[in-house]
């Protein structure tokens, strides 16, 4: 069983979340080439170790989270609200 420490809801079963892949910056559709866009959509690093990922807490707070997870051990180093990334304590302050 994998638990993800949601900054809003606390530790929850991973089944409550939707995995949205590695977190990264979306290329600008106006300037990117079709090949760059294809690579962004379909070609992923799939590292064995630490990865920064995007998860959506669909059965909880319904917020997007940025999670640092070890893909080998499933250890989670940090989980932050993506929209509040610049202010990691904002979730706590908003309670």
């Amino acid at each position, binding site marked *: 069983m994998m638990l993800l420490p949601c900054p809003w809801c606390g530790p929850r079963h991973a089944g409550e979340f939707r995995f949205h892949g590695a977190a990264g910056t979306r290329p600008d559709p106006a300037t990117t080439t079709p090949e760059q866009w294809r690579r962004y959509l379909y070609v992923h690093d799939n590292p064995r170790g630490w990865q920064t990922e995007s998860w959506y807490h669909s059965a*909880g707070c319904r917020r997007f989270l940025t999670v640092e997870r070890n893909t080998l051990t499933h250890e989670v180093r940090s989980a932050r609200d993506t929209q509040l990334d610049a202010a990691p304590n904002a979730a706590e302050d908003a309670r």
Partner: protein
Amino acid sequence: MSEETVPLARSPIATDPTVVVAGWEVCARVSTAPLTLSDETPLAKVLVRAPFGGAARDALGVSFGRTARVGLGTAGEVLLVGSAPGEWLALGAPGTAAAIRAALEERLAGTGEFVSVLDLTHGRALVRLHGAAAPVVLAGVCGIDLADHVTPDGTALRTSVAAVVTDLVRDDDGGVRSYLLHCERSSGQYLVDALRDAGSPSGLEVTGFRGLVPSSA
């Protein structure tokens, strides 16, 4: 000219026998069992969405994860639930949804924030699981720690209950464990069936509409 018929609202949860209460067809059963499940769908349900942590939260007086009983003038007393970040659910007596909506809109008008207030009464299902053994039943269908020190009376959270996204609100009645479970209307019957299955070893019985527990209880 034909006689005007009064519309009758039905819960998504099948009940037999039925009785009409405040324009809603509800279960007529009365159980005295220590562990009961009642269909509370007729309660007015009004959703508020606003920026979290802002003026709206201060105006409502309820933060995420907590509940409070609030007087809303003509709408009467409502149970205000901080169901998610920037999301509140107001539960009131049957037939008061329009008054609750108006009262909340008036209360939030001065915040200057973008706020939406929506009547969800007929779009959601609401049940109450009542009895000291309620945590035992819920433990079979959801993964939340329901110990007193983790989820005390007045706690609100959203989680997966029998794989249905459900707002779980602990709302003790006279010192007895009581949980309100609020989900999409289309999942209501399934949720009730799952709770009845999980509760049958504990002697869970279905009872009729109870209504909102008054704050003095």
